[in-house]
């Protein structure tokens, strides 16, 4: 089970830079104490993108074919939907 498709070091380095940048965006929004449904969902959207990048590039699932390409993406949708529903209902 070695020699899995590796999406390359350079793309992973760009993903790392993107993850760090998006983390600072999230932190900035937190520091500004900005509330509200749209901001909360925007922050959640950033988290979903970050999770997808980790799954596809760092975990290497993006280069797979078939069912194993999707578990992280599906997992992100589950808590993402629950959190979205709860925040919409509480707004």
């Amino acid at each position: 089970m070695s020699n899995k498709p590796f999406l390359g070091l350079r793309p992973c380095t760009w993903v790392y830079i993107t993850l760090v940048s998006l983390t600072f965006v999230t932190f900035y929004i937190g520091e500004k104490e900005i509330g509200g449904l749209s901001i909360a969902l925007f922050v959640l959207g950033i988290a979903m993108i970050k999770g997808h990048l980790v799954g596809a590039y760092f975990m290497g699932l993006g280069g797979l074919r078939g069912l194993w390409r999707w578990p992280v993406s599906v997992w992100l949708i589950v808590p993402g939907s629950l959190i979205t529903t709860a925040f919409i209902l509480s707004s």
Partner: protein
Amino acid sequence: MTQAVEAIKLHDTNRYPPGDLAIWIFILAELSVFAAFFGAYAFTRMNNVALFNEFQHHLDRESALINTLALITSSYFVVRAVAAIKENHHQLCFRWLIAAMGMGAVFLVVKVGEYAHHFGQGINLSTNTFYMFYLSLTIFHFMHVIMGMVILSAVALKARRGGYSAAEHTGVETGASYWHMVDLVWLILFPLVYVMR
């Protein structure tokens, strides 16, 4: 004929995730538990919005930022470790794994500092609903970071002894997959508990 066999092998390796398949079953089970935890947090908050917003304000967001950067950086170092062993550089793989564990240690130290602050103020699981979720969620994740460090240590020691190669490095990929899962969970936990209001 040989080309056809190689093509079949490549097709087969493209169908399964890196590392031991058993770790992926374990990862999916762990992710399911965290998904339930996140859902429970969000729906409990629904009936306690003011309480959650008030006590979220008392959390140390700068520590959470440092911890997020530490875990992301650590995950990236693990990616470098996997890339190194694929090039047959087992000593380089070992060094990247040590660097990854160093970042993991930063996470643990910062988190212990946060807990010391909270416990010093007399905050515990029964203080209120928000702290019950905050402490149980983050401590549960904290234990996964420790578990990940133990796994990475075992992989690093074997890598140092030359136990992995470009041809066989399933153990490195297995440890890496678990560590990325720990990072992945924190990427949702951080905005949910520290930022979203």
